[in-house]
């Protein structure tokens, strides 16, 4: 019914055209499958949630170069003044900013005795006061926040209480409750930190690290000439706070530089920029490749129609319906597509393996070549039907003419 045999013999009679089409389809499947795999992988990376209120939280840098002041009370005054500004929900000093690409990280020692002690995975370390949880907009799901009197000022080594992210708690203590556990900032027994709370999700600063979801918040207000300040404010108030915060702080003491106001959502854009760039360029490639393949195919079909005008006219004269003519071209295309798809699938896997061995890419998922072949079949159907309709209109009378 599908007239596969006559189609095959047509294909065999003039091999070079179909072979070229076959090569094109094989390469297209290999490229498109791998490219769309990389694209979807990058999109999945970019979709991860940082756990914070990204549109509300911003940070800025505060650099005090006045040496004749008590830095500690200066910073505390500054933070209080910021919290009182209209639009501000909360504010805290911090050691790092989520998704910003720079910050602090470390592993800790856990265990019940010196012999069984082991190192944890790395975790991002946020030093802040009792306002940092609210300033980040993260959700506390177990335990409690720091009390005001638990906050210590000065050096990071003093930390005694910690709030950890759920991912870090699970990785470190498994199903045991994290609340009440002790971990050590030094070797076993040195600088103990008691876990008092767990937040649902809080990411660190490095989106390509393997421990992005591991975070620890410690009860220290850092006192340093360079201070990072985290502010959570109503959406849309940043533009006005950008003016109000320096004005307020400069009124208190002029000898500092205040700059670098950045929303976490902007950090996100910047830190994922390369992934987004890769996804965009590859998508561009996929679209253009499919376009070129279908245009090329349409061109070939047009040419074939012209060459086969007499043959088509004869077939029409012998009783073939218009439908049959179109299906002839379609089946011809499907045969090439399927053969090309199968070989292209293999080539795609080979190419994927090559990329995997050379670069840090995961193994190609088989669904991608399959999807690509399916997509190509749909696309080539359109590319074939449009010119083939013209072929179907060829009058049977053409067969009776000699030229």
């Amino acid at each position, binding site marked *: 019914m599908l007239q596969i045999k006559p189609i095959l013999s047509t294909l065999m009679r003039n091999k070079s*055209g179909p072979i070229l089409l076959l090569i094109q389809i094989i390469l297209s499947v290999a490229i498109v499958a791998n490219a769309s795999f990389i694209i979807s992988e990058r999109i999945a990376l970019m979709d991860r949630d940082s756990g914070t209120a990204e549109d509300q939280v911003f940070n800025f840098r505060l650099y005090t170069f006045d040496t004749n002041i008590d830095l500690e009370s200066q910073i505390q005054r500054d933070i209080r003044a910021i919290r009182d500004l209209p639009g501000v929900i909360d504010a805290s000093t911090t050691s790092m900013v989520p998704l910003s690409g720079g910050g602090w990280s470390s592993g800790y020692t856990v265990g019940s005795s010196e012999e069984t002690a082991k190192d944890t995975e790395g975790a991002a370390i946020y030093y802040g006061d009792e306002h940092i949880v609210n300033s980040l907009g993260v959700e506390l799901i177990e335990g409690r926040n720091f009390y005001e009197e638990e906050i210590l000022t000065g050096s990071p080594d003093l930390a005694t209480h910690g709030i950890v992210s759920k991912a870090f708690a699970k990785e470190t203590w498994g199903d045991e409750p994290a609340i009440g556990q002790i971990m050590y900032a030094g070797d076993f027994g040195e600088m103990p930190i008691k876990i008092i709370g767990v937040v649902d999700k809080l990411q660190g600063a490095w989106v390509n690290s393997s421990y992005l979801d591991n975070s620890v918040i410690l009860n220290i207000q850092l006192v340093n000439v360079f201070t990072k300040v985290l502010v959570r404010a109503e959406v849309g108030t940043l533009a006005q706070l950008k003016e109000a915060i320096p004005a307020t702080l400069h009124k208190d003491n002029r000898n500092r530089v205040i700059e670098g106001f950045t929303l976490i959502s902007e950090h996100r854009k910047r830190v994922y920029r390369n992934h987004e760039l890769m996804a965009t*360029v590859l998508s561009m490639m996929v679209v253009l490749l499919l376009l070129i393949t279908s245009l090329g195919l349409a*061109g070939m079909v047009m040419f074939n129609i012209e060459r086969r005008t007499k043959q088509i006219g004869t077939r029409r004269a012998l009783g073939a319906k218009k439908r049959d003519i179109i299906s002839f071209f379609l089946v011809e295309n499907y045969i090439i597509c399927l053969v090309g798809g199968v070989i292209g699938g293999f080539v795609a896997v080979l190419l994927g393996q090559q990329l995997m061995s050379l670069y840090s890419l995961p193994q190609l998922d088989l669904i991608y070549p399959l999807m690509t072949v399916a997509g190509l079949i749909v696309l080539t159907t359109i590319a074939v039907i449009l010119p083939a309709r013209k072929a179907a209109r060829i009058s049977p009378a053409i067969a009776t003419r000699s030229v």
Partner: protein
Amino acid sequence: MFFYYLDLAWRSIKKTPLMSLLMVLAISIGIGITITTLNVYQLMSENPAGERSDKLVAVQLWSQGKDAWKEFNNQLTYQDAYNLRKSDVPVRQTAMFITGLALQTEDPDFVPLLESVRVTDSDFFDMFSVPFIYGKAWDKGVDTEALYQVVINEVLNKQLFSGEDSIGKTLYLDSKPYQIVGVTKTWSPSPLYFDVTTGAFKDSAQIFVPFSLAPIEEFQSWGNNQSWKRESINNYSQRLNSEMHWIQFWAEVQDDKQRDEYAQWLKRYVEQQQLIGRFDSPEAAAQLSNVAQWLELNEVVPEDNKILVGLSALFLVVCLVNMLGLLLAKFLKRAPEIGVRRAIGASRAQIFSQHMVEVGLIGFGGGVLGLVWAWVSLSLLSSRFDLEQSLTHLDTSMWLIAPVIAIFAALVAGTYPALRICSTNPSVHLKSQ
């Protein structure tokens, strides 16, 4: 003859405008994509040190303990940098890191600026060929006996002193007065090979101060600070004596002989440090890399770019196969005409070259159009992603590379169809007429 073929080719292209357009489009898109990725790749992998690449070497030391990092860190500890500076083997050498300081002038109304500052030695400027407009680097003596001297760049000089010769004037960094000794021309090699720790495609710092001031002024490090050892660092002197890696170190050697000599010197240094209980890993060693090796080592060209160049080359192949198919169809359709030409005396070689000229013309069109695509896509990408200028300007070499690749690729793709057509037997076609 060439121009006659060109005329024939142009007529043939005009006869089938749609098909010709398709072919030019196919090749131009392939070229456009390839040139886009190639351009970014080339700009990233450029070796900005040029012929000095072999003379400049980055020093790395495996100073970490037994179970620590499994590779050389790309920076040194302060104590190692301090000791290495005493070596008299290299011609020049410099330790450095980046910091940030508040900048003020003698004008009280000047709003303080936070500027990134490179803390380095006097040799830095000669080693990395920094051009000066006014003055020069601080004296070599300052590298051991610290003085509050500073080198600024042209842009900052324009901003602060409206571009005048500012040698001898004073500016304030963190409220301390520094005397200006030199003003450099705007100079920003890309990649910023001597410090790739915080991104290789940033602009170079605008202010340079002596490294010898670091222990006195306690400059904070704005770069990467990496520790393998758990030690408590609460003040600057603990930092200077720690095992934390945060200093970049480069040396300049005259030739390979001196490089070997320096490697020997470093080997002895490692052994000497082992005697006092440091460098306790069995793998403890020193490693020297010239600029080319250094760029390779630090993977300045990201993997993504290599993948993109590879995929776009495959893309170009698809475009060529596409074009090959179309050409074949087109040429074979013209077989009767060729039969007549052959019958009245055109040789095979003539037919072949006639078609190759046509193919070359299509390739040229594709190359030119491809350049336009590349320019469009680069400017779209740079505005959409706010990329560094140094990565998205269309390199001048591409003006030549694009048409050459396009014509060459088109000729390769056109060879088979042209061969097919010139080997047709004239009598077959003459008969059917």
